[in-house]
């Protein structure tokens, strides 16, 4: 548990490390998905190719899209791309950098799926079993079958239990041949991807290092700025809510006092903090009224400046909150809480 927490903390310490962590988890998830998936070749002439190639190509596409979805920065990229220029210029190099770094990370899980699939060999065996060269690998002296029959027999190669063409071509020979081709393709694919990654990574410092440093700084800046803005807004919302609710309670107690025509009871000088926190609501009936009013008639999203408090707890929702200095209800003015 502690080990897991430490690894988790290490990855969270830095946004890039975090994204690399997600990338690694998706690659592991893709191998796990493949081994958990129950591959079931249909062993029918026209369906094998579609099934085999489908399993080879559709899950990588899904994993690629998932890589984008799980990446927090995609909404940041979209926002930066679509925002109006305003007073701040837009740098296409920064957008390109963000997109490239996201696409590179999203590519890893699909590449792992394709490599594992090819190295395992089941998909290619299923997809291309009807194309096995019977003349070279099979029994040339076997009585001639029609083309359709041959296709049907060959299509059953991946399904050993129902294979009936042992005289035409031995099942093991065909499977070994197809698996060898699949593994060769797999290793070539991995070599190609690794070479591409190596070239991309090593050619960059040779050509555009200054531009790269600039793009990296500003893309990081946009990310931090968005987070800080969200934090500032959250702080603001908290203060807004606190003052709004405080003013609601104050307004409530003032209105009730006005309605009952009591003289405002001045709190004794040494009442202490607890009395202040009661905000003037000190009995069961008043509290119930406050709760009912909170539900039925929430206060408008408009804070009064503290000096001009006018006990406006009952203001309806339709009040246009434009000029805070306007007095609202004259009846309440006599019992200002000041």
């Amino acid at each position, binding site marked *: 548990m502690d080990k897991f927490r430490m690894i988790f903390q290490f990855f969270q310490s830095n946004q890039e490390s975090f994204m690399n962590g997600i990338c690694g988890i998706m690659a592991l998830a893709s191998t796990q998905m493949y081994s958990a998936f129950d591959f079931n070749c249909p062993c029918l002439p026209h369906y094998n190719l579609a099934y085999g190639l489908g399993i080879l190509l559709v899950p990588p596409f899904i994993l690629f899209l998932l890589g984008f979805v799980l990446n927090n920065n995609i909404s940041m990229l979209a926002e930066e791309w679509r925002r109006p220029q305003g007073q701040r210029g837009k740098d296409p190099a920064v957008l390109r950098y963000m997109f490239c770094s996201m696409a590179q990370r999203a590519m890893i899980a699909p590449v792992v799926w394709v490599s594992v699939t090819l190295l395992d060999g089941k998909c290619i065996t299923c997809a291309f079993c009807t194309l096995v060269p019977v003349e070279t690998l099979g029994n040339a002296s076997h009585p001639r079958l029609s083309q359709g029959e041959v296709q049907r027999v060959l299509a059953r190669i991946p399904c050993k239990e129902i294979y009936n063409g042992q005289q035409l071509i031995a099942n093991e020979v065909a499977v070994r041949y197809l698996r060898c081709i699949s593994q060769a393709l797999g290793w070539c694919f*991995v070599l190609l991807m690794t070479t591409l990654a190596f070239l991309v990574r090593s050619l960059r410092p040779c050509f555009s290092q200054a531009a790269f440093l600039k793009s990296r700084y500003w893309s990081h800046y946009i990310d931090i700025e968005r987070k800080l803005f969200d934090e500032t807004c959250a702080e603001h919302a908290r203060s807004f809510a606190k003052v709004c609710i405080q003013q609601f309670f104050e307004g409530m107690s003032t209105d009730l006092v006005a309605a009952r025509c009591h003289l405002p009871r001045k709190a004794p000088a040494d009442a202490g903090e607890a009395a202040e926190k009661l905000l003037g609501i000190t009995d069961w009936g008043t509290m119930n009224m406050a709760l009912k009013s909170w539900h039925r008639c929430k206060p408008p999203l408009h804070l009064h400046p503290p000096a001009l408090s006018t006990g406006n707890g009952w203001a309806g929702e339709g009040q246009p909150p434009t000029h805070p200095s306007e007095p609202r209800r004259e009846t309440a003015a006599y019992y200002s809480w000041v």
Partner: protein
Amino acid sequence: MDRFRMIFQYFQSSSESVMNGICGLLALASVKMYTSFDFSCPCLPQYNMAYGLGIMLVPPIILFLCGLILNRQSLVMLEEWRRPQGRRKKDQAVIRYMCSSIMQRAMVAPVVWIIVTLLDGKCLICAFSGSMDPEKFVGFANVSTVQVQQLLAKVPCKDDELMRNSASRKAVSRYLRCWSQALGWSILLILIIAAFLARWLRPCFNQATLLQAHHWSNYIDIEQKIFEETCCEHSRLFAHKCILHFFESMRQEIKLHSFSLPKEGEGAEGEEDLLRGITDQDQVNKLLKMWYYEKPPLDVSQATPM
């Protein structure tokens, strides 16, 4: 648990340690990859050699490239190599030192793969069973040339119907495995002796130059890391100032457009400070809209201190 944490911290303490850690992980990954890879010799005369040698030589190239990609220092070295001279001279010895240390670390995983392959023997049996001299083995001696090629090619496949209980197949297989293991152990011995000699004889040649190169390569690496951290710190402060400046300018705009009485000197509560003068729904909506439609310019030189 404590031991794991200590190991983790040790590896993170210096970038050389991190690289050694990655090197070790790649070597383990290479062994794991070999054991989980389902080796399946085609047992066909034209394909055996290509498959066997391919499995022995292509994954090491991939592992070597991975070792270069995953090593942060290779980027640092390339940057140092390609940077314009400017006001800081370039020392070729440092670049050479970095290059050689990167190459050495990247070579570990491929060598591990090749040695494991040779010690296991399957690849060599698959690649060279067709090149055996049939006269040496009883079962293949009196067979026609074409057929003998087919039979020899099937030696790596134990489960093939022709080869299932063939004593000659086992003989060829044992012979090739013996050669393969001898080759594997010899390569391992040669490499370890070479590493031993290199490490022990190094202090006899150019020790001072070596110390300098080591120091400055370490320096370049640390300088790069600290520069990145400083940029991060700077962008955080920049963003903070920019946002505060934005809120402040919104507050001033609101003051200009509304006719509220000035509130200074009223002893505003602590919360009022955090509200920054934005106190109703319309003002908040306006602020959020401005944030999207007109982000503030990237210039905090006019920002008033808060």
